[in-house]
Structures are given as C-alpha cells and as structure tokens.
C-alpha cells in the first residue's frame, strides 16, 4: 500500500545552518503520525516542506501522490495546516475568518459544525484580538480543517491549553482520524505521543534517530540500556539527551 506521505532524503539549510540533514519517513493513510524532538531539531521545517511551504534543497516528497514543489496548489487544497507562527488580522471576527478561509477551498467544511466542534460558537462574532490563548488555538485548528483536508498537519497542537481542553482536543484529533483524515502531529508533549500517535519519528539535529510505534520505541530504548517506564523515558534515551545532563 502506497504511503500517503513519502519523504526521501530531504535536506534544507538556512544559510550556513543545516536545519534538516537527510530525513526520510513514511506516513500511512489514516494514521496519526507524531514528529517529536528537541527545539531546533528541524521538525517544523520538515512539515513545512510536506505542506508545500518550503522547498527542500535536496530530496523528494510525495503527498497523496503529488509533489509539493511542483503541484503547490493541489497539495495546499488537500493539506490543512495549523502552524505555530501565524496570525490573523486583529479585528477579524471568528466566523469571518472561517468564511474567508473556506472561500479558498473547492470543497469547504460546514462552518457551523466547526464552530460547535471546537467550542467557538459563542465566540463567533468576537474579534481575533479578544480571544484567549486557548480560543485562538482552537480557531487555528478549525482553520486547518476548513478545507476538509485529507492530511492535517498540526504543529504544537495543545501548547498553552488547559488539561481538560487538551483531552477534548485529543478526542477531536481521534475523531479526525476516524473520519478518514491522516494526521501529522508535531509535538514535544510525550503524553500526547503516547495517547494519540500510531507511529512516531524522533528527530534530533536534523535527522531521524528512531521511528516506529511508541511501544516499539520503548522496547528499543530498553535494549539500549534504558528502563523506560514511559515514552518520555524512551525518547530521552534514544536522543541521548540525558547523557548531556549526566
């Protein structure tokens, strides 16, 4: 079965800094695939290349059989993204933002359902600048879904959200997967990986250091001499991060 996303040997440098130094991974249709790693590991660069926002210096990417470099529009129609450093005009209202972005897609989702699902109904006429951190986050997630994407890229999905909201968000991500979308989840929360991800790639210094199911990675970490009681332990062992602090 063809992977829905195939990344082969991508490299990307910003000036003299090599952000991604040869990353290959595959995402299967209908899974929730996690990408974890320390800050500056290259995670955001990788997903931006997949979502057709950056062009890798080397390597090959296929998303739904399409090339994000040459078939930009087709990829963007099918891939929804919730990015870290993005913003909306301050005085734009929530429902206006959803309608604006819906107008960009050939097959937009139902705005009212999105408002309900992401608990934004009573904020529909609120200006973006007046939203709390959690409300903003939920709006940006809803925007990622407004085009009924087949692939959803979520970058730091639950950062800044209260614990109850995180749980509800995880349920909604599972619901997305149940509805047939494939989810690419960039996160630094280990509990999120354990709870949500079918498989995960661990990125450090621009390379994949390990990939597989969370439990497989935990097994791998115990073979490397760790005794992981959680995915977090496994992650720290696999990235050798604890060694830096020993």
């Amino acid at each position, binding site marked *: 079965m063809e992977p829905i996303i195939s990344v082969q040997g991508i490299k990307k440098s910003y000036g003299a800094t090599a952000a991604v130094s040869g990353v290959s991974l595959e995402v299967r249709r209908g899974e929730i695939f996690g990408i974890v790693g320390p800050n500056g590991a290259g995670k955001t660069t990788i997903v931006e290349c997949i979502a057709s926002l950056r062009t890798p210096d080397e390597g090959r990417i296929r998303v739904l059989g399409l090339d994000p470099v040459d078939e930009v529009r087709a990829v963007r*129609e099918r891939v929804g993204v919730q990015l870290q450093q*993005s*913003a909306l*005009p301050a005085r734009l209202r929530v429902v*206006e933002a959803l309608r604006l972005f819906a*107008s960009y897609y050939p097959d937009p989702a139902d705005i009212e359902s999105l408002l309900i699902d992401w608990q934004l109904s009573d904020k529909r006429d609120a200006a973006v600048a007046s939203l709390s951190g959690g409300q903003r986050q939920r709006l940006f997630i809803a925007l990622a879904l407004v085009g009924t994407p087949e692939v959803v890229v979520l970058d730091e999905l639950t950062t800044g959200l209260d614990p109850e909201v995180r749980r509800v968000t995880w349920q909604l991500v599972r619901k997305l997967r149940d509805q047939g979308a494939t989810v690419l989840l960039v996160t630094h929360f280990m509990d999120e990986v354990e709870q949500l991800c079918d498989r995960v790639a661990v990125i450090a210094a621009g390379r994949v250091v390990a990939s597989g199911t969370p439990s497989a990675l935990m097994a791998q970490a115990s073979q490397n001499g760790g005794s992981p009681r959680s995915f977090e332990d496994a992650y720290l062992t696999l990235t050798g991060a604890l060694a830096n602090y020993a």
Partner: protein
Amino acid sequence: MHAFTTTTWTELKLLIREPAAAIFVLGLPLLLLMMNSTHGNDPVPELGGVGALDTLVPGYLALVIATMGLMVLPVHLAGYREQGVLRRQRATPLSPTVLLASHVVVAMIVTVVGVGVLVAVGMAAFDLNPPTHPVWTLVALLMSAASIYALGFFLAGVVRTARTAQAVAAGLYFPMIFLSGATWPRHVMSDTLRTLGDFLPLTYAIEAMQHPWTGRPIPLMAIAFLAVTAIVAAILSARTFRWE
C-alpha cells in the same frame, strides 16, 4: 472568484473597523482644499486663463493617491507579513495574485471615495469646475493610481518590518508630495527643485490629470510614463514579494 470577492469584502470590513488610514488619506487633501480655496476659482492670467482651484485640485487628487499608495498600503502589507498573516494565507490554495489584487481593489475603492468627496466638496462649496475632458481625466487618475500602487507594492514586498516600511515610505512620500506640485505649485519653485520633480511619477500624475481637467492638450508622454512605471514596478513586485 469567490475567494477574490470574499477577500476583498473582508479587507474592506477590516478597513472600516480601523478608519485611521482612510481618514489620513482624505484629511490632508480636504484641509488643503479648504485652505487654498480662499483665492476662489476665477480665471487667472498667469495660469492661462484657468481658475486657481481647477489647477490645484488635480494635485490634491494626486495627494490622495500618494497617501494611500505610499503611506497606507505598504505599511499595512508589511504589518501583515510581520505578524504572520500572509504566512497563514500562503498555506492555503489562495492564489497570491488574487490576494494582491484584492488589496489593490480595496485601495482603489478608498481612493475613488476620497477623490469623489474632494471633488464634491470642491464643486459644492468652492466653485470648482468639473473637468473639461472627464474621460481622459479618469484615465489619468487610474494610470496614476496604478503606477503609485505598484510602487507601493514593490516597497511592501522588500522591507522586513512595518516600521521600516513606514520610514522608507515617508522618505519617498514627503519629497514626492512637495516636489511634484501636489501641495504647492511647481511654477513658483526654483529650477533645481523643478528638475528634481521631473524624475518623480507623481509629477506626471498631476500633469496627466491637470491638463484634461483644465482643457489643455492631453499629455500623452506623461500618461505613457505612468504606464511604464506601473508595469515595471508590478513586474518587480511579482518577482521580489516576500510572504514572510
């Protein structure tokens, strides 16, 4: 098309919610109109028998265009870039051409309203005569707007922050409005200042609008210059515009 109309309509709504820019665009020209209308609009021999106000008002129209195109538009777009608004829009299938076109249309709407108010006030309260050749005046107005907005877009595309955009814009705007004849007439300037003004698009914008307004021969060279400026600036913008 749906994306274009929704984007344009949304931008218009946002503009109305923050009217400072629109007021700025309209305020100074109206003020100048009221200040300089004390001379009346009777035929003046030094101006070839044309009224003072008929000669001055095209300059005020150019002022509306310059304020919108150099001071408002670049700062607005650079601000969007700096905040990450453009970046988010780029992650969608929205065509960059459609996005820029909608900003141009909104700028045009503000300009047309500004021009309309200025001319209406001028005619109703200060004896301003309607243009002798209205079609050519309109052509000149559109050409002027096109060239100045294209310059504004180019500026917006190459600066990094809204603050830089503001500084560079001011560096272009103030010399332009003084040397072009928008704020006071060129025939009272020294030869040096007049020569400097010969290099500015706004000078040709004023000439292009003034001649058909006052019944003088249509300045085809000025209109051609504006068209070339618009095309060159538009091509440069398309090549250099950065979304983040």
